[in-house]
């Protein structure tokens, strides 16, 4: 069974068709990297998957449960709010610009949702939060506020915050685009560690070498369609001219 299945997803903004018939499947423990030039629809796809954006057509299934199914014309029909609310708990998202809550300390950023939304036990949540912060190398920063941290540290807090809710699948929307190369390394290492623990992840990224090293499956998107996909070897040695051009530009 797939953790996430998206079939024939379509999305149009005003007159621009951003996603044209996109299908993807994510198995448990798999790391999927989505690459491609800016404006290719990668982020929109991720926003549809995380219910921040509504798709116009296609279907989306999390763990066998339909978040969206399509009618006979292929139009997207969303499940009832209580179903979506449950499905919402299956995934987490790490944003490009972190979106930490500035008025919460690091610890509170991580603990608040598990306590107030999931109503979990305080001692358990705090222990879990400390473990996560330790894993992120932030055990010293518990009491600090986001503005006191570097971008890389903020992003690691936001990863801990997403993981604290025990998602089955974690999405990353260009997690290193707002960071300098040195800080980028920190984040990529954290993601690699998560991959080693078989965390299921879908990562939109511009870091080609990282995608190559960490992903089990790479999807190359352009103009709202999947141009090429497969294992890193397949994609990086693809004969597709557009793929080669894109990778070639990166070499320079």
């Amino acid at each position, binding site marked *: 069974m797939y953790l996430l299945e998206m079939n024939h997803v379509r999305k149009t903004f005003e007159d621009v068709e951003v996603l044209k018939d996109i299908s993807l499947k994510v198995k448990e423990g798999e790391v999927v990297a989505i690459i491609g030039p800016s404006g290719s629809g990668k982020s929109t796809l991720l926003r549809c998957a995380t219910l*921040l954006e509504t798709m116009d057509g296609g279907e989306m299934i999390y763990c066998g449960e339909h978040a969206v199914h399509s009618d006979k014309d292929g139009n997207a029909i969303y499940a009832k709010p209580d179903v979506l609310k449950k499905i919402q708990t299956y995934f987490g998202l790490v944003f490009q610009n972190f979106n930490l809550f500035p008025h919460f300390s690091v610890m509170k950023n991580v603990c608040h*949702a598990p306590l107030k939304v999931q109503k979990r036990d305080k001692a358990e949540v705090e222990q879990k939060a400390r473990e996560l912060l330790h894993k992120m190398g932030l055990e010293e920063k518990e009491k600090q506020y986001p503005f006191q941290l570097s971008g890389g540290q903020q992003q690691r807090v936001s990863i801990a915050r997403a993981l604290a809710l025990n998602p089955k699948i974690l999405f990353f929307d260009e997690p290193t685009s707002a960071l300098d190369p040195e800080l980028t390394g920190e984040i990529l290492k954290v993601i690699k560690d998560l991959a080693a623990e078989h965390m299921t992840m879908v990562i939109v990224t511009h870091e080609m070498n990282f995608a190559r090293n960490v992903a089990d499956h790479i999807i190359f998107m352009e103009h709202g369609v999947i141009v090429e996909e497969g294992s890193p070897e397949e994609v990086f040695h693809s004969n597709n001219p557009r793929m080669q051009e894109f990778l070639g530009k990166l070499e320079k």
Partner: protein
Amino acid sequence: MVEIRFEIVELINGIKDFGLYFVHMCSRLAEGMVVSVQIFFCTLFFSLLLGLVVAFGRMSKHFIVRFPTKVFISIMRGTPLMLQLLVIYFGPWFMFGMKISSGYKMTAVLIGFAINYAAYFAEIYRAGIEAIPVGQYEAAKLLGYNKAQTFIYIVMPQVIKRIVPPVANETITLVKDTSLAYTLSVIEMFTLTKQIAAAETSMMPFVVAGIFYYIFNLVVAVTFEYIEKKLGYYR
């Protein structure tokens, strides 16, 4: 020697007399001070709450709610508060022939102040709420917060921090605006000041009134400065 001593004694007596007169004036104005302070606190309480309701109306998705709220704010901000007080006090009589008792004076003043300031506060709230980055809402949604939780835990605390300076501004204006209650001859600070100054042809009531409003506002300013400092733990 004797002359100098005499002058000093005279000077001391002069200061003493002035001091006594000042204290005397203060005690005569005290009743007015209490009423002014009452108007101030009641207005602040009701307008800060009502302002939130108006702000939500102003930001409503529904035209039928949003438009009237917009008109209300426009009128409240576009006409003199003094005129609004007169309309609220005399309106029921002129328009509906209702008898108005003098006990209604204070009520009319409070209604007028509360709805007028609510309009201003509503716009301050709206600016504060709309300034919260959309990413905060998206992060909250992804973490499973519902709309009410998002507003209470995530949005409101950040809005409060942002709106403290403009609210302080408005509050300082309110202290001075309480004097407009004299339009309906409510016996507050300013009404008394004018009466006493006219009756005794003396400057002293004005001096006392000036000091009263100034110190009142100093307290308001210091209080808001303290709140701002308290909220300065994050950026």
